[in-house]
């Protein structure tokens, strides 16, 4: 693999770009691997990458039903932030955000991380108190956030109407080091680095069963035959329950569609990320100029990857009051992803009832921001059997009643 650099671009410009090589290899599956990761999304690829980089385990296959990064990694609104209320959440999300800062250099792949700042609007008295509490919690956790008033908000985001009659903007939780990144590039960058280390990324390979012997995993049945492994990691987001069923256990997870949409490209008008949780709308402007808008989840289980129309209508209707200038925008695309939601809205990074099998799921509606941190922590869990970042996110927290309650923290499904 050739390194990307300004010199590489200059060299290729001289020879009509004929010298670029494939970004990752497309190998035939081996008979067995030390570690198999199911799911080549951001989290799965990041797990494989840190297994190789931090623990020297490179005999790894990442198995993917479709194409890599084609699930929720390619379907989210690319918001990166770490202003959570609970200590375990702040620890893993802040680890993730800090890894994003150097990710382009580390992977030698431009993930276009843009720390443009993210504000979460308080539009009710309930949210005012909630976000002030979060700002105090973040101070104690060492996560830099501040609570700001309407004047500062208007300064940071002039297109916002802060004195709307129905949803006035009373304040906001501002994290200046939050931002966004190019979602596909994150998956592609990790895939390229994994492939470079000799790992196999097996696309269009569907896992149809998990084989076990004496309580330990022995391999997976796939559409390309049986593949043996010593350790298995399940990192499949919305389909976590389906894969867990193959291994013979139930998860405290329900899968629902979450929708997003983008507008036609317009001139730069907004250089921060704005989240409005009361009205379930998030908005930022992409580098191409499109307004990227995220909505709320559907109320019932589904695997349809499209979602209900009325949720979109509610999101857009509410955003138009806060951002009157978007009322004439045409929307270009709309899509849905299947998110795996737990009861306490916190992820599961855990050992499972099946020996040598680990699961990373339950990131719900906020998985993209967690990709590097989740991969870092889950790789440690898989390699060493424990990790300080995952200690509070075990499956056993549900029987112990030791929740990491972020649903009450946000007051909404987020």
């Amino acid at each position: 693999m050739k390194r990307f650099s300004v010199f590489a671009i200059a060299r290729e410009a001289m020879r009509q770009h004929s010298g670029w090589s494939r970004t990752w290899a497309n190998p035939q599956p081996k008979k067995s691997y030390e570690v198999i990761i199911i799911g080549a999304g951001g989290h799965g690829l990041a797990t494989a990458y840190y297994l190789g980089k931090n623990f020297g385990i490179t005999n790894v296959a990442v198995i993917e039903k479709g194409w890599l990064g084609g699930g929720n990694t390619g379907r989210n609104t690319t918001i990166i932030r770490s202003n959570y209320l609970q200590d375990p959440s702040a620890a893993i999300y802040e680890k993730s955000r800090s890894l994003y800062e150097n990710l382009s250099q580390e992977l030698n792949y431009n993930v276009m991380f843009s720390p443009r700042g993210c504000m979460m609007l308080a539009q009710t008295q309930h949210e005012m108190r909630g976000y002030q509490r979060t700002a105090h919690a973040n101070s104690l956790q060492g996560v830099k956030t501040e609570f700001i008033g309407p004047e500062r908000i208007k300064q940071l985001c002039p297109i916002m109407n802060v004195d709307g009659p129905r949803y006035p903007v009373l304040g906001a939780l501002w994290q200046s080091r939050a931002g966004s990144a190019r979602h596909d590039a994150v998956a592609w960058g990790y895939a390229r680095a994994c492939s470079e280390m000799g790992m196999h990324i097996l696309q269009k390979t569907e896992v149809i069963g998990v084989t076990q012997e004496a309580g330990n995993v022995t391999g997976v049945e796939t559409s390309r035959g049986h593949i043996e492994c010593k350790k298995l990691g399940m990192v499949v987001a919305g389909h976590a329950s389906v894969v867990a069923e193959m291994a013979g256990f139930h998860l405290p997870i329900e899968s629902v569609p979450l929708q997003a949409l983008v507008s036609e490209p317009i001139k730069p008008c907004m250089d921060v990320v704005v989240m409005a949780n009361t009205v379930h709308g998030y908005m930022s402007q992409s580098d191409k100029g499109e307004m990227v808008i995220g909505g709320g989840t559907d109320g019932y289980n589904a695997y349809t990857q499209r979602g209900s129309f009325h949720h979109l209508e509610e999101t857009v209707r509410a955003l138009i009051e806060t951002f009157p200038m978007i009322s004439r925008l045409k929307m270009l695309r709309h899509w849905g992803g299947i998110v795996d939601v737990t009861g306490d809205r916190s992820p599961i990074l855990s050992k499972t009832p099946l020996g040598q099998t680990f699961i990373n799921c339950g990131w719900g509606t906020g998985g993209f921001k967690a990709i590097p941190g989740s991969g870092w922590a889950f790789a440690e869990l898989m390699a060493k059997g424990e990790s300080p970042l995952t200690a509070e996110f075990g499956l056993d927290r549900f029987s112990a009643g030791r929740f990491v309650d972020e649903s009450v923290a946000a007051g909404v499904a987020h």
Partner: protein
Amino acid sequence: MLMLNCPYCGMNKDETELSAGGEAHIKRFGPGSSDQDFEEYLFGRANPKGLHFERWRCSSGCGKWFHAARCTLTLEVFGTYEAQTLEPPQSIKDLITVKRPGWSWRAFS
């Protein structure tokens, strides 16, 4: 858009007129049960990709809770039935067998 027929008032309702209530036929465990049973009752969910049995409420109509058999992948509705039952009526099971031969869902098939 999902539409369900309320088995009590007979109205064909749009999803915006209904409230989803999650998985149906969950067996309750209370004091005296094992931790594992209690955890499964509180948090364990089938969450299938395909046939699912759910609770819905006719919230802008008659206000009653009812059950629905639905596919989570295609949104096809196999039928709705009254909530005062521990398992789906045979007529609904037969209908599902025609459309999804060999189906099973938790203890039902």
